[in-house]
């Protein structure tokens, strides 16, 4: 997640301004005043990312890596188990969303007058949720290992 700019997170260029102070001489009188110039050179923004770690907790921390996450080896490296757990956590949430979609579909079937189909789909939703609950329990136990 980038908190300061809406960009890709990668090194990039866009116009931006810097305040400068210049010394000028007018009519034999030297004085200093501030100018604001537009620059278009490349630059880096410190930024933050959300991460899911082994404990399943999402958190945000700052990087000074110019957004090149592939090059970040220190804070962003995850073990295979961490990745599997992140994937599993995603799937549990994803399955819950699918279960809701199926329940909505069942309700529409009921509205069409097909109550038998509604009951069958809702039974499937129940089975689906039981399976997902089992996954969730496994995930929780893994998080506490």
């Amino acid at each position: 997640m980038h908190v300061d700019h809406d960009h890709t997170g990668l090194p990039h260029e866009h116009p931006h301004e810097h305040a400068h102070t210049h010394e000028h001489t007018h009519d034999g009188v030297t004085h200093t005043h501030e100018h604001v110039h537009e620059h278009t050179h490349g630059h880096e923004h410190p930024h933050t990312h959300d991460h899911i770690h082994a404990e399943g907790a999402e958190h945000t921390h700052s990087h000074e890596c110019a957004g090149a996450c592939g090059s970040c080896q220190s804070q962003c490296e995850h073990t295979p188990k961490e990745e599997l757990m992140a994937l599993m956590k995603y799937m549990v949430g994803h399955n819950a969303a699918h279960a809701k979609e199926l329940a909505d579909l069942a309700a529409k079937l009921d509205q069409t007058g097909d109550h038998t189909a509604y009951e069958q789909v809702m039974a499937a939703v129940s089975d689906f949720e039981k399976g997902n609950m089992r996954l969730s329990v496994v995930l929780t136990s893994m998080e506490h290992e």
Partner: protein
Amino acid sequence: MCLSTVYKNKLAPETVMMKNVMRIECKDGVVILTDLMERQMAVEGTLEMANLVDGVAVIKEAAV
């Protein structure tokens, strides 16, 4: 909806660029892939195909 596998130029096992892709951004001729672990990969090219049912996408790499 689901995570995808992204391939380069053609859909074949040896051309897998990134798995578990959760976001694909196309900007200024660059396709930026982000996976579930927030790792990013950028490639110059275009999104040629995305099959959201099968969870696959193909990036056509720009000619050098």
